[in-house]
């Protein structure tokens, strides 16, 4: 069943709240939207409504973390990274194990428009030493990632969607911080020409595009999700960029600078086709925006075909 990763996050945190009394949750007047209210309704003594004051919320979360608590500080991703100075000093430089939960990431928040869209958050957060940047895929990896963050006292940014996500990871999937995951019905890397790496919102669209390229366009394309964006899962990445891979396509609901596309382009000498957002967002329905910004399956297929054609021409 489709579920927004914010929804799965909220349910998981509530469940974990029973066994982990060190979890405290903070929100800045968006508890209904971030789903932190699910925890707050059951554990009111460990839930702190900070009002529309995200900088202070982040500072308080840092203090709670330094004093031994495991705080989750929640807001829209855009409003969290707008307080980058508090994140860089109070959380990062202190190495305070705060989980910053940024929801409604990317253009898929829809009608609210650009001001509510986090599109540069991955780029900012991964510039902070020791910051863990995680973006779950569906209702299968989200609970495991939230659980990981409860059990490991690291500063982290958890990027979540309002967009409902289809379950695409196998039921047997087990999260590992140092590995991404290959998606079903696409060829293994050793048999592929292209590698398609995706994170977050467009995961299903990318998988469907890779399946189409492999089956119908005779371009075997492996598709994998990267739910750990930082620290870079380098060994795993090297293992999927096999010698037969000619080029890499990255797909993300984030600016193509700073995010997954940049991360991969920094890591490899292979040609990289970055698919993502390249300008301001705007109002529209979720599906209109996905199509407008080229994150739907058909758009991904078209860009991939053009990229593949370019690769072959350059080899002539």
């Amino acid at each position: 069943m489709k579920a927004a990763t914010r929804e799965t996050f909220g349910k998981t945190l509530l469940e974990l709240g029973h066994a982990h009394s060190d979890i405290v949750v903070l929100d800045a007047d968006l508890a209904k939207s971030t789903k932190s209210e699910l925890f707050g309704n059951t554990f009111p003594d460990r839930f702190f409504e900070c009002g529309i004051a995200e900088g202070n919320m982040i500072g308080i979360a840092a203090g709670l973390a330094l004093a031994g608590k495991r705080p989750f500080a929640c807001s829209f991703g855009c409003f969290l990274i707008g307080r980058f100075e508090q994140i860089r000093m109070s959380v990062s430089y202190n190495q305070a194990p705060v989980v910053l939960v940024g929801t409604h990431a990317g253009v898929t928040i829809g009608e609210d428009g650009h001001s509510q869209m986090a599109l540069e958050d991955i780029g900012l957060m991964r510039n902070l030493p020791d910051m863990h940047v995680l973006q779950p895929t569906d209702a299968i990896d989200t609970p495991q990632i939230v659980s990981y963050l409860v059990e490991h006292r690291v500063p982290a940014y958890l990027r979540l969607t309002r967009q409902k996500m289809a379950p695409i990871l196998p039921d047997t999937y087990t999260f590992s911080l140092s590995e991404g995951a290959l998606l079903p019905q696409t060829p293994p890397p050793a048999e592929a020409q292209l590698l398609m790496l995706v994170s977050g919102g467009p995961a299903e669209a990318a998988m469907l595009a890779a399946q189409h390229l492999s089956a119908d366009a005779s371009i075997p394309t492996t598709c994998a999700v990267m739910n750990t964006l930082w620290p870079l899962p380098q060994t795993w990445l090297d293992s999927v960029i096999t010698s037969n891979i000619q080029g890499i396509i990255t797909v993300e609901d984030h600016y193509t600078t700073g995010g997954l596309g940049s991360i991969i382009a920094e890591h490899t000498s292979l040609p990289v086709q970055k698919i993502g957002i390249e300008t301001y967002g705007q109002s529209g329905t979720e599906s209109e925006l996905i199509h407008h910004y080229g994150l739907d399956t058909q758009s991904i297929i078209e860009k991939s075909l053009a990229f593949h054609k370019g690769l072959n021409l350059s080899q002539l």
Partner: protein
Amino acid sequence: MDSKELSPTQLATLSDTLVDMRKVILKMIAEAKSGHPGGSLSAIDIIATLFLHRMKYTPEHYASLSEDVFVLSKGHGVPALYVVLQKVGLISDSLDLMSLRKLGSPLQGHPDRVRLPEVVASTGSLGQGLSMAVGIALAKKLNNDPHHVFVLSGDGELQEGQVWEALMFASKLKLTNLTVYIDRNQGQIDGPTETVMPLEPLDKKFEAFGWETHTIDGHNLEAIHKTAHLTSTQGPLCIIADTVKGHSVSFMEHKIKWHGVAPNDEELEQALNEIESKRNRERSV
């Protein structure tokens, strides 16, 4: 347990210790050839009195934040904190205070808790210390930990909006285990606070935000000591400490220039002599 008044002997010893501390602060900054003498000298009386005569802690546990806690929000005043931490045994005597601001030293130009956990919080980007202290005080409430959290904030940094967000929050949560001292030395880099961005009426602003507020002479050790022992059942406490930037050195006092400049050899010698002569004067009174 400390009584709520300093005995004449305690007061004399503390005054004497503060003469030594002021001299070390200036030597450290001179040796580093950079730093913030003005705000270190305005803050030292408050920091020393809190650590020597109010706070309860042990060297083994202080950095775990399970005891009384002090957060220096005005991170640039950190030479004063380093001197006090060493005096009370929270940092080792073997740590050379003259390594201030030198490559690899735990004594960074602004507090760094990863390199020196006893500073509690990394600060230096102004306006953030109070929020962190609020978080620590909140954790203590959740843990039923009866210890107290002290914060020393600059006056200039009150211009940061985040401070007022934290004031609202601490008041809402009735954090009776939190006391903030304001080092009200009236100066900031670009000029007097009341010219750069007026703060007054400061006491009324804190009161309006739900804080019990007292104003004292921030160099009166008895007044610092007395307010440090105040508790409120209503909420957090604010002590506005009227201080003198560059206190005890005539050519530094009230001079914005000495916010962030190190004394040269001659200036250092003159400053040390002036501070020392104050000790002699105090003794002869």
